[in-house]
């Protein structure tokens, strides 16, 4: 039976993959052709979605972007047998966008049926957990430490150190919490993992549970991701039934259970202590640190908190060894990062590469420049709290330290491209506005400062005492940096000040131009 793949990833669904899948099934039935239609995850080439693949002895043939109205013509051109249709792209694996990547975390995404355990195992799944099941917590921690893995949520804290802290503590109960509140605009790697390869997250968290001595885990998923929530819940149910979760995993003495908890539209709950409050059923108010969550986390117990991509990197590290992972990357940024090319970009999608690739290589070589075809003007890296970089900084290597040295951050690897129609004063204003909307309200500089920030930027743009107000804006930003407990207030100045620094002309438009708008 011929296997046909049509992604169920929500980015593919957003451009009509459900209708394509229905049309293919209907047409195959009408023509009496026996096919097996598999709803896979996305390969991450979003401009080609819906990307239909047909399994052949040579490999998978790709067609895209396919719309439901193309399906009849695809069947007429015998697309199941050869790739002669105008939408044919050749063998998927030979597409330069995929071929030039270093996919460790995303090795399986888009290839397997996301909820098939046999598919998962056939493609190397649970190999890491199998090794972990016969190791001590300390041995697992040593392997993760050796890999050089740093927190993929954005802060880049060494994962091994975090795990060691929890591993070394004695407690009646410990927890593992996955931060899947992927709120940064321009990021979708967590979502793709959860929708396209959910057992990898289950496996990574279970390994963390064994390492830290925790028997209960929670995955905190934002409510804006309904598909990811449903797939993860199914994956947990299926894995539990197959004894990869729950009591006595695969007949060993290890037990670990998982539960999905939904967020409720609060960006701040991506901050780890705020997420803990939310998991406890409370307002997502940021906690003061110390105590750090590794010592007093969920319900006051030692807790391993990591981002989806951090946990997702662990099965590879356990299976292949920490050294194999550490071989990738540059400086103190080891391994790979699944970068996400988003916004005004021609070939948007997921590009997993070792650290060290430059921003320009990502945007031009992979991304193909802007979607609009107009010149690129600004790039925001690392989400709404990340800096806006001008075209002149595209030579920056993607590495935690290089970015920090240039007043920017890699964050969760989101790259949002803007063309020359962007108004950078408006973007700076939005950064403050967003902070005002999403602040938990605990720290005054964040809660009130962001509102004052919007007002000051409005005065600058209107030409009211511009120089004085620019000084005031700087002072306000410094107060926010110094006086906020977490990154919300502490990093909002990054997009604001980088916009002022790199695009001063947008803050200094003649008054009559402003009045005319």
């Amino acid at each position, binding site marked *: 039976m011929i296997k046909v793949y049509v992604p169920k990833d929500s*980015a593919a*669904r957003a451009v009509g993959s459900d209708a394509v899948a229905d049309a293919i099934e209907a047409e195959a039935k009408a023509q009496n052709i026996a096919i097996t239609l598999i709803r896979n995850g996305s390969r991450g080439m979003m401009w080609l979605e819906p990307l239909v693949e047909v399994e052949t002895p040579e490999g998978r043939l790709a067609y895209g972007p396919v719309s439901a109205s193309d399906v009849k013509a695809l069947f007429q051109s015998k697309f199941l047998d050869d790739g002669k249709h105008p939408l044919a792209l050749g063998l998927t694996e030979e597409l330069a966008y995929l071929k030039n990547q270093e996919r460790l975390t995303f090795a399986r995404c888009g290839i397997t049926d996301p909820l098939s355990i046999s598919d998962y195992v056939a493609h190397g799944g649970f190999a890491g957990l199998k090794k972990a099941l016969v190791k001590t917590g300390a041995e697992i921690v040593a392997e993760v430490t050796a890999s050089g893995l740093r927190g993929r949520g954005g802060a880049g804290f060494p994962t091994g150190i975090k795990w060691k802290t929890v591993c070394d503590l004695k407690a009646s109960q410990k927890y593992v919490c996955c931060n899947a509140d992927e709120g940064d605009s321009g990021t979708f790697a967590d*979502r793709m993992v959860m929708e396209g390869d959910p057992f990898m997250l289950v496996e990574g968290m279970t390994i963390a549970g064994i390492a830290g001595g925790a028997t209960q885990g929670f995955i905190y998923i934002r409510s804006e991701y309904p598909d990811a929530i449903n797939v993860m819940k199914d994956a947990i149910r299926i894995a539990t039934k197959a004894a990869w979760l729950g009591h006595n995993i695969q007949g060993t003495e290890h037990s670990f259970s998982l539960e999905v908890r939904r967020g409720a539209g609060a960006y701040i709950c991506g901050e780890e202590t705020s997420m803990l409050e939310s998991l406890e059923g409370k307002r997502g108010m940021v906690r003061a640190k110390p105590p750090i969550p590794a010592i007093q986390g969920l319900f006051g117990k030692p807790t391993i908190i990591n981002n989806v991509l951090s946990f997702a990197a662990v099965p590879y590290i356990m299976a292949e060894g920490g050294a194999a992972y550490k071989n990738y990357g540059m400086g103190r940024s080891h391994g790979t990062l699944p970068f996400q090319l*988003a916004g005004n970009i021609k070939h948007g999608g997921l590009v997993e590469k070792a650290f060290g690739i430059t921003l320009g290589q990502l945007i031009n070589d992979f991304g193909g420049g802007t979607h609009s075809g107009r010149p690129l003007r600004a790039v925001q890296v690392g989400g709404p709290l990340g800096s806006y970089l001008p075209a002149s900084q595209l030579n920056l290597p993607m590495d935690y330290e290089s970015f920090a040295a240039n007043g920017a951050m890699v964050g969760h690897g989101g790259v949002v491209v803007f063309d020359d129609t962007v108004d950078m004063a408006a973007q700076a204003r939005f950064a403050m506005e967003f902070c005002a909307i999403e602040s938990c309200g605990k720290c005054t500089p964040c809660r009130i400062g962001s509102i004052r920030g919007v007002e000051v930027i409005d005065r600058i743009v209107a030409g009211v005492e511009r120089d004085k107000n620019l000084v005031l804006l700087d002072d306000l930003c410094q107060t926010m940096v110094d006086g906020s407990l977490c990154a919300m207030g502490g990093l909002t100045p990054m997009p604001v000040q980088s916009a002022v620094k790199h695009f001063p002309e947008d803050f200094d438009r003649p008054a009559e131009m402003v009045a005319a708008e």
Partner: protein
Amino acid sequence: MSKKHTLIDLNPPKHAIASAISSRYDNKPDALLEILHDIQHEMGYIPEAALPVLAKALNISRAEVHGVVSFYHEFRRKPAGRHVVKMCRAEACQSMGSNELAAAAEKTLKIRFGETTSDGSITLEAVYCLGLCATSPSLLVDERPMGRMTAEKFQALAAELAS
């Protein structure tokens, strides 16, 4: 959810629904967000009548329940339209013209964000990122994702949802 006019009200009272949902989670206080999600899923919003019921069931104060309901943008205090459109207003979508799209959507529906159309068909809400950033601008209709949205496509969508 349209209101049914019948002589006998067959719907269980709001507090009974809230109480039943709470017991589904063993009345655990840490499950408050989950409980609120389920209430909103079943009733379209979080009715005021549910608050004291939940406070009692979870053994927390009514102020704490109110605090949670009012903290999270997702929870609605008044009924929504038959369909909820969540439009992304964050940076990646902005780079592809979502601010213009948002203005066009408000004009098409003759409402502002956070409001419901006069015929009760559509509630328009702002969200910040749906993870559909490579096919922006994006929105979610109930739970259906839609990308590469334009003002024209939105008009057609609004007409479809209103019918």
